[in-house]
């Protein structure tokens, strides 16, 4: 059996590793000279920046991605991060950090609330696990339950960091599935070697299993015969296959088989594709002589104007920066209406950093923005259409086709695992 994988991002490589392990002959086609997509390292002035992800696995060494990496015998070490913290103003009524701040642990997020609200939170933590709330978005649900602005700010900061969305764009079902996954899989971790540590390990598995990776080779068409994927065109050559897995998201994949999809029976699929909206974000990479965050966990910043959270992965793997330096990366969600003012959004992020780290010495290494054709997620979490397509033997994996409740790459892993179950039984 032969499988063709289009795109050597994390979803494509995970699929290739698994399929080659169970005996498929695997060929991977990647347009760029590098593999890893938005999950690999970019070496810049001795710092291992990244092409997208912030060198973090949302559920660390006990999550779905690590599980899949173990299954395919990928040799990479994932280290659990320190507990996440939340930066609060000294007085809860202060609108920002200018008059000072303190950090609290994420799992004590309720401490700034009134006694009555704390009691309510305690009850909801139990009751929502039994009876999952549904039918609305996270923001509307919080407003309905609480009068306290703190929880709204925290929700936006948490959703901005983990999904690059505002809380009013997060379906309640998706949020509570995410929370359940936090109980199920635990907290974040950092791969040794950063994102590329994972990618290199997967490539080694694929090559050892006899798979082939063609870089700088763009797929121009997916060949469909009698409603079934049969092969691809790449570089004027036809490559036949029994199975095709696309790592390009649903929309770009559909474009590659556009002729075959012109049939009226696929109209509803195309209509659904129009609803898919990529999520957008900005990452600011800082070089620091001294620790800025001070631990390997995530620092959420709900009182910043734009920045949702920051991490400092060099506490886990010092080799991600030159000797004695730290690599600190912030992430901020971009609201769709603000995309046209990207530079303003960046300036607001830079101002935030000054407020979050007053008096600290750091240098801005690189400001990276992600939207449209190279987004944070190709489909906003909770809204993607799953891994199947109307074409038989054609599946979509990656951040445009994640599993439910899967944060970022954990969702990619859940989507790949679900796809493999469908294919391999």
């Amino acid at each position, binding site marked *: 059996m032969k499988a063709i994988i289009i795109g050597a991002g994390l979803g494509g490589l995970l699929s290739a590793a698994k399929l080659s392990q169970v005996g498929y002959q695997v060929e991977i086609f990647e*347009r*760029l*000279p*590098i593999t890893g*997509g938005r999950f690999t390292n*970019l*070496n*810049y002035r001795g710092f291992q*920046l990244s*092409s*997208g992800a912030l060198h973090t696995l949302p559920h660390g060494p006990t999550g779905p991605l690590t599980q899949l990496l173990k299954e395919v015998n990928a040799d990479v070490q994932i280290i659990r991060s320190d507990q996440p913290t939340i930066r609060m103003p000294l007085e809860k009524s202060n609108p920002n950090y200018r008059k000072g701040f303190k950090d609290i642990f994420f799992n004590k997020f309720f401490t700034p609330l009134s006694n009555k609200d704390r009691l309510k939170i305690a009850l909801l933590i139990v009751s929502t696990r039994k009876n999952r709330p549904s039918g609305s978005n996270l923001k509307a649900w919080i407003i309905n339950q609480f009068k306290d602005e703190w929880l709204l700010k925290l929700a936006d900061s948490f959703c901005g960091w983990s999904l690059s969305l505002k809380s009013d764009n997060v379906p309640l079902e998706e949020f509570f599935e995410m929370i359940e996954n936090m109980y199920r899989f635990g907290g974040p971790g950092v791969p040794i070697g950063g994102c590329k540590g994972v990618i290199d390990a997967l490539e080694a598995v694929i090559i050892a299993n006899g798979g082939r990776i063609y870089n*700088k080779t763009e797929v121009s068409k997916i060949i469909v015969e009698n409603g079934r994927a049969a092969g691809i065109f790449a570089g004027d050559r036809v490559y036949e296959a029994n199975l095709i897995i696309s790592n390009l998201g649903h929309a770009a994949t559909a474009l590659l088989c556009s002729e075959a999809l012109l049939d009226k029976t696929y109209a509803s699929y195309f209509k659904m594709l129009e609803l898919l909206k990529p999520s957008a974000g900005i990452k600011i990479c800082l070089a620091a002589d001294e620790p800025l965050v001070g631990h390997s966990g995530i620092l959420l910043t709900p009182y910043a104007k734009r920045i949702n959270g920051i991490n400092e992965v060099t506490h886990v793997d010092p080799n991600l920066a030159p000797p004695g330096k730290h690599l600190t990366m912030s992430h901020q969600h971009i609201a769709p209406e603000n995309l046209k003012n*990207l*530079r303003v*959004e*960046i300036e607001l992020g830079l101002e935030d950093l000054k407020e979050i780290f007053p008096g600290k010495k750091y240098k801005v290494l*690189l*400001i*990276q*923005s*992600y*939207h*449209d*054709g*190279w*987004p944070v997620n190709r489909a906003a979490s909770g809204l993607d259409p799953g891994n199947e397509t109307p074409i038989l033997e054609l599946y979509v994996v990656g951040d445009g086709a994640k599993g439910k409740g899967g944060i970022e790459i954990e969702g990619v892993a859940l989507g790949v695992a679900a796809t493999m179950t469908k294919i391999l039984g």
Partner: protein
Amino acid sequence: MKINDNCVGCGQCVSFCNQGAIEVKGKATATAACIGCDICFLYCPVKAIEVSV
């Protein structure tokens, strides 16, 4: 080289430029240090870099 409207500002080109000749802030721009080697063209994930043939 010319950078077109496909550019999202991901900065991938910056890290592969051997001349340090690209700046990015929402969008990439080439500085006077650009020697036209066009290596960046290969690494752009959104086909935003056009090279003169």
